């Protein structure tokens, strides 16, 4: 715990700035991809990029990478729960 706490203290500001640069770049990529002809892939690709951005925010801005692993476990349980909701909904709609 203590070593992890120390680790938190030394996260340099530059890391946050780089994450921010990456987030803005990914936003730029999604917007410019919009103007290409990949219509069918567009929504899927946009969601993929959004998920990459969400990962950066959760791991770095929300500090999960530097927290105890229990937080990552809790988040995975949340994602699995939400995945079940999505899965059941689509199974339901696909069989109507």
């Amino acid at each position: 715990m203590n070593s992890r706490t120390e680790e938190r203290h030394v996260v340099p500001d530059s890391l946050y700035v780089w994450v921010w640069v990456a987030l803005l770049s990914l936003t730029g990529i999604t917007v410019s991809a919009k103007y290409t002809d990949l219509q069918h892939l567009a929504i899927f690709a946009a969601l993929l990029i959004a998920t990459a951005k969400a990962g950066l925010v959760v791991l770095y801005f929300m500090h999960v990478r530097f927290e105890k692993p229990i937080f990552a476990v809790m988040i995975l349980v949340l994602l699995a729960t939400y995945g079940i909701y999505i899965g059941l909904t689509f199974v339901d709609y696909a069989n109507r």
Partner: protein
Amino acid sequence: MADAGAARTSAAGAGGAEGGAHAGGYDPMAAKMGMWLFLFTEVLLFGALFIVYGVYLHGFTWQFRQGSARLSIPVGAVNTAILLTSSLTMALAIAALRRARQVRALRLLFATVGCAGAFLAIKAFEWAGKFTHGVYPGAGFLLEQTKGEIIFFGLYFTMTGLHALHVLVGIPLILWGASRARTGAVNPERCVFLENAGLYWHLVDLVWIYLFPLFYLIS
């Protein structure tokens, strides 16, 4: 549950070692865990709406694209950049406070609030523009459009509105954190209040990260 209990107990033990004596049952690990659990309910709240969106996108793909074409991509992109920047200043503010750089932390918190205000102002102009063009729930013009477009804009106003409400709540929350940082109630040894405000703010950013492509970029 047993895991969570064990983590809390060990954290409470380590909490004392972390920054000297923590009187009054100050337990940052438990506080943070509680905040995350609250954020999970927020994820499921927005998550349910995203599922509704997904189902109707499946049913009205073409009409959703027509609806999306009515939204301005530059406006949405600028608001995305503003929110991402506010997340950066929030993270930097907490880092500054942890290094006992109070003035820098306060400046960064005010920058965060400034970004939040800018986001809401742009959103307000955007909505006002839609209203004058007869695009709002129940408007005569909108009701003449296709069913898919009516649903698209119903979801647009519901989801971006609920998100804007969260931005609106974030502003006094961050200001409260700033005021506690100024008085020293939030300090390098006891900053979980500000960290939790930060977690909330990043979640607001997270929701927008998905709202932006799903509403603005599918035309």
